[in-house]
């Protein structure tokens, strides 16, 4: 379940980046009109940055989101040994 969420989040992040770069920002190419200098959607740059951040937040979600396998385990670092399993 967690893997699905993380993977989906990751793909969404890359998707946002690609969309923002190629379709939401100013038109790429040799400037021939103001369309090359104005973003097609305002705050396209912010969308791109959100995409980059989402890709890396997926790692945080992967580590922090509690899942089935966490239950019933305790960990303890006293004396470097693990207690419970």
């Amino acid at each position, binding site marked *: 379940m967690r893997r699905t969420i993380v993977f989906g989040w990751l793909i969404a992040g890359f998707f946002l980046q690609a969309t923002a770069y190629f379709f939401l920002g100013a038109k790429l190419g040799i400037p021939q009109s103001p369309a090359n200098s104005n973003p097609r959607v*305002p*705050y396209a740059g912010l969308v791109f940055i959100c995409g*980059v951040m989402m890709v890396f937040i997926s*790692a945080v979600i992967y*580590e*922090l989101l*509690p899942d089935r396998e*966490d239950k019933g385990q305790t960990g303890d670092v006293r004396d*470097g040994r693990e207690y419970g399993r």
Partner: protein
Amino acid sequence: MAQRVGTYTYGSEPTERLPYGIGRVTGPWLFAAALAAGAFGFGVYAYYRQYTEGEVITGMRDIGTMGGTPWGLYVVFIAYFVGVSFAGIILAALIRLMNLHQLKPVARIAEVLTVIALVCAACCVLADLGNPIRGLLNLPRYARPGSPLFGTFTLVISGYMFASLVYLYLDSRRDAMICARVPGRLQTFHRIWAAGYRDTPAQRRRHYTASFWLAIAIVPLLVTAHSTLGFVFGLQIGRPGWHSALQAPSFVIMAGVSGTGLLIVAAAIMRRALGEQERLTGEVFRWLNNLLLVLILAYLYLWIVETLSSVYQGGEQEVEVTRALFTGEYATLFWLVLALLLSALALLIAQFFRPGLALVAGVTAGVLVNVAAIFKRFLLVIPSQTHGPLLPYSPGHYSPTWVEYGVVIGLFGFGTLLFIGFAKTFPIIHLPEAEKERAA
């Protein structure tokens, strides 16, 4: 089974003191903080003067008829700070991807150095802008992907910094959990940082996987980020001396040189300050020194290729810029940079054959290459503007004023404050249990 690490004894219950002097202000720390704060205050004053009076009080002027350089010391240090940020990620990648666990003690120093360097780079960008508030408002709204600076603002300053913060955070939850056991003012802070980390085998496994993939993801981000900064210069046909396909790789390698050098210096200082001679061993420094050696050799190679290309059959203006560097107005600085890099190289080769010299050679080389990196960035940014114009304007001149020096000194003070502030609230060196378990 109590184990003595620095000033911290654990394995006995209850734990009483946080390791590495965290949460306890000492005399030498206060002295360092005061110096850094003083530098920061001076920088704030210098920037205040610049903000109110305009950038006319800097040494920058318009290119061409005014014979000045619109990009000056600020851009030099933007390139330098972004370069220094190379350190953290390459180390994290090396440790995780190549299983070099002996380097683990320096990992957090490197990651913190990366984040602080990027914060300083961002502040330096704002200091350089003619309208910084407008910059903060207009950049998210209007940023153009077609501009090389788009990569700098988004990938470097936002993406790269964020990725490093995530890596730093995830890598340090375990130490936060250990620190959260000690009652005190910082306990809540450490508890929030740990966010429920209980060091179960499942959590450790997940962290291993996550950090592995993070390291794999951050390395291309690092190459892209430094390359876009190289593209800012390398794509400009109008600036002979900048226009070169080698700028992108050159920036990546120079970043490695300055970042690794500064990391060696910071690690040596922390080793002394925290008494961690047992964990920040000669072997750690030897490894870092060898990495620096390889990077310097790679950089010298790129430099030679670039110079030969422009000298053999360069355009007229490119030859003019090269002349200004070799024998003209910038000759002293040029040959000084070469001398600094070669001296660092000699020291590092010496410690390769005499391992006992590792620490001293490494720290000296680290300082030398960072000074060389700053001067080399200066030699990149300035001569192409003063001697490079393609139309026959007379040669220009640039000398920074106290304002520019002040802001830069303020930024170094700010970075130092952040670093030593972090070291007082969180372990700057991984707590040793992590290694014990890996060995078990």
